[in-house]
């Protein structure tokens, strides 16, 4: 797909498979490349890339049913919407705490499961909203202002 040269009106959705570690990170990689092509500030790109990758890994690790990531670029802001099809989060407040993780030993051996992903996203994004319905899925919306 052609990416326009202006930071305007671009919207793309990527499917992310649960538990597929071989392509985990591909969506965030694409998002980063698009933001570089349209000339978004490097520091902002880094915050978006880090947050998007953390969210993508959460989807791959915790949301076994998979989901999707939508990149929405407007002149003022970049929005990353991450939606998955379960299992959902029962206690969001707990999940947001640094160090809280339900990751298995297998996941920890891969370098994840420190319970730092959501706190990282919280500190990188200008706005973060998370909602979840146990048994149904989780929606995470992050907004980054494009000064």
């Amino acid at each position: 797909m052609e990416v326009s040269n202006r930071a305007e009106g671009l919207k793309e959705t990527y499917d992310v498979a649960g538990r597929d570690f071989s392509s985990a990170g591909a969506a965030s990689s694409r998002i980063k490349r698009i933001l570089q092509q349209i000339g978004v500030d490097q520091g902002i790109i880094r915050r978006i890339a880090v947050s998007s990758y953390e969210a993508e890994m959460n989807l791959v690790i915790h949301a076994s049913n998979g989901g999707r990531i939508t990149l929405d670029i407007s002149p003022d802001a970049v929005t990353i919407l991450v939606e998955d099809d379960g299992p959902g989060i029962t206690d969001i407040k707990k999940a947001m705490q640094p160090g809280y993780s339900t990751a298995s030993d297998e996941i920890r051996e891969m370098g994840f499961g420190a319970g730092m992903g959501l706190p990282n996203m919280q500190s990188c994004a200008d706005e973060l909203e998370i909602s979840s319905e146990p048994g149904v899925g989780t929606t995470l919306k992050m907004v980054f202002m494009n000064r």
Partner: protein
Amino acid sequence: MNDSAGIQARSTMTLADICKILNAEVICGEDKLDEQVTTACGCDLMSDVLAFTLPGSILLTGLTNQQVVRTAEMLDLKAVIIVRNKRPDESMVELACSKGLPILLSPYPLYECCGMLFAAGLKGCNGSVHAKDESSQKIEPAKPGEMTCGAPGLGD
């Protein structure tokens, strides 16, 4: 101050210098050995790397999977150094090559690798660097040779 490889201590070094100090084998990215590096991070937790590593750093790790390459990509890291003689997964090497990310292998364990580079003058990454308000998280950087135990904010 001289390290065992005879390289003068300084705050900037090239990947080639790092290879020499760590007695490292280059798995990919031969063409980038003259790149300058000013900071490093030694860690096996990718979320900590993502939170605390400065862009343009190198990462020393014992992990050998594709996620290390993805993490390096998100942060624009200059190289990944795999410690203690571990061989990277074929899929990791393939992805690193396609991204142009240098991968070096050192026979020494993580602590030794970090110690040798630190003694040679390569600094660490202090505090959270992607936070919106960077000043609120800055801590006084440790200087090589003057590191105190339990420096705050280094991830743990």
